[in-house]
């Protein structure tokens, strides 16, 4: 009784094993609940599409990720079939298409935000000149100008990448500007007394110091970048993971949608993790400061 009370109190410090069990619990519970409802529906209608069973999902994964697009059409054909006729492995094609848009969009966004944020943080004239406008742009809801983006940039790759850039770079510029302004004035005066010129201050003092925070910010902005990517792909695209999801929706093909969503989540998780490991490895001083 006492141990139970201890467990639910704020003084409880769980061991590693308990932590792992507690962390797995919500996953197991939701998987279990899903499986229960899915099998109930399948008992009534074996062809139920709304809550597919793992077997159905595996079939879809096999078809989507391990077969070429037209493989089934040519099944049993006597004639030799060329690779072009067979088509691509759609899973690979979609993943690469989405990742390309995401990485290009986020990179351009992050680098331009770093430049604008630096200029605003370092030069008073640029702060007065740029900050009100950037603030204005950052408040415009990016999805509301999606039609304009499609009109201006067409419906090809450019529009999707632009949506990611417009959706993230203005907010990122403001954040970087804040990070730079948080660097104590003393640091700049100190560098000047050591004989530094403006360029050396930016290159040797400011940029290295904000780098880990900049990468961390990029990591956080990957989430909105995904949001804008999915929105763009859902509306106008011929490939990409979100395009595939919205295509499958037409056929109520939940057995394909659920694995793709899990895959997108996994990619997000891996990107997040890699950036974290990189920051820890590359910037030991940042970790030593306990941030």
């Amino acid at each position: 009784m006492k141990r139970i009370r201890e467990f639910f109190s704020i003084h409880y410090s769980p061991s590693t094993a308990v932590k792992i069990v507690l962390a797995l619990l919500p996953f197991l519970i939701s998987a279990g609940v899903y499986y229960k409802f899915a099998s109930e529906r399948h008992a009534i209608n074996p062809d139920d599409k709304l809550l597919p069973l793992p077997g159905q999902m595996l079939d879809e994964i096999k078809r989507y990720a391990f077969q070429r697009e037209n493989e089934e059409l040519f099944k049993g054909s006597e004639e030799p079939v060329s690779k072009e006729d067979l088509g691509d492995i759609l899973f690979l094609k979609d993943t690469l298409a989405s990742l390309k848009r995401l990485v290009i969009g986020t990179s351009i966004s992050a680098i331009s935000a770093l430049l604008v944020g630096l200029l605003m943080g370092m030069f008073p004239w640029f702060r007065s000149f740029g900050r009100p406008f950037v603030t204005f742009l950052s408040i415009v809801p990016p999805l509301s100008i999606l039609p304009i983006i499609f009109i201006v940039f067409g419906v090809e790759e450019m529009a999707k990448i632009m949506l990611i850039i417009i959706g993230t770079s203005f907010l990122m510029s403001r954040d970087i500007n804040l990070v730079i302004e948080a660097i104590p004035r003393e640091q700049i005066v100190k560098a000047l007394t050591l004989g530094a010129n403006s360029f050396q201050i930016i290159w040797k003092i400011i940029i290295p110091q904000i780098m880990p925070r900049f990468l961390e910010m990029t990591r956080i902005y990957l989430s909105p970048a995904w949001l804008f990517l999915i929105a763009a792909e859902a509306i106008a695209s011929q490939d990409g993971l979100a395009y595939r999801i919205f295509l499958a929706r037409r056929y109520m093909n939940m057995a394909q949608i659920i694995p793709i969503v899990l895959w997108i989540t996994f990619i997000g998780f891996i990107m997040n993790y890699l950036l974290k490991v990189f920051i820890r490895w590359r910037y030991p001083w940042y970790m030593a400061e306990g941030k």
Partner: protein
Amino acid sequence: MMSDHYQQGKHVLYAENVIKVYGAKIVLADIDLAVSRGEFVTMVGPSGCGKSTLLRLILGQEQQSSGTLIIDGEAIEHPDERRGVVYQKYSLFPHLTVFDNVRLGPQFTRNPWRRFVERKIVRDEAMKFIDKVGLTEHASKFPAQLSGGQQQRVAIAQALIMRPAVLLMDEPYGALDPFTREELQEFLLQLWEETKMTIFFVTHDLEEALYLGSRLIGISQFYFEGKDMKARARGARVVVDLDLGRGRKTPATKATREFGESVRFVRHECFTPGISMRVIDLPLRHPDSFITLDAEQRGEK
């Protein structure tokens, strides 16, 4: 117009009629100050009296509203390598190791070619200064891995390697525990004797100021000017200026009766609101001290 108190070869730091105003608020009313080369000046004053403002003016971080301010023969514009500075916090760059922090100055002041050709000279020079402050085995650590006292030692080495005309220190020991503080006081005195550099040390600790300095300056807003004998809000000026001598001191000095009397004297003159002196009677006893007053300020009109 400058008076004839200024002596170029002798005075490394010189201020005359320096006034600093923020909006309607006068912070520094009229600072007159001449500091000779090799002096260890300690500056005290009630909190909020403008010590930090004066320091920022000397650094060139801010400009005086009027008056003359000269460092090493030239007027002050922006912060540059003629002054070194050690702050209570933020003196070190957190992303650089001790070694990189110390060699930063010599690197900044060389062009890329000389930086490459003379990299060994720079390295040896940096290690010499790290050695001087006793941190050789910590050279590859980051500031966050050092204690507060060690961080301040690195900051001193980082500033000294530039051989500035004046080393400015803004309450450098304010955040240290009493033991480390005493240790660093001895360390600084030793360094000062060795290098004969000019130090301008701001502190709110009277005992520290009297112990370390060869000259003590108190600035304060508690004084009377002209015929007006009513206390009213005004900017600070130098109200105490003492010659403490350049003789060797030991921690035992602090226990002497004489030392205690000096502490009481400065506290009375500089920190006590009720007791205000007329500007013509201020205890400005150091040979270098001077005061520029017009007839009205002297109370003759």
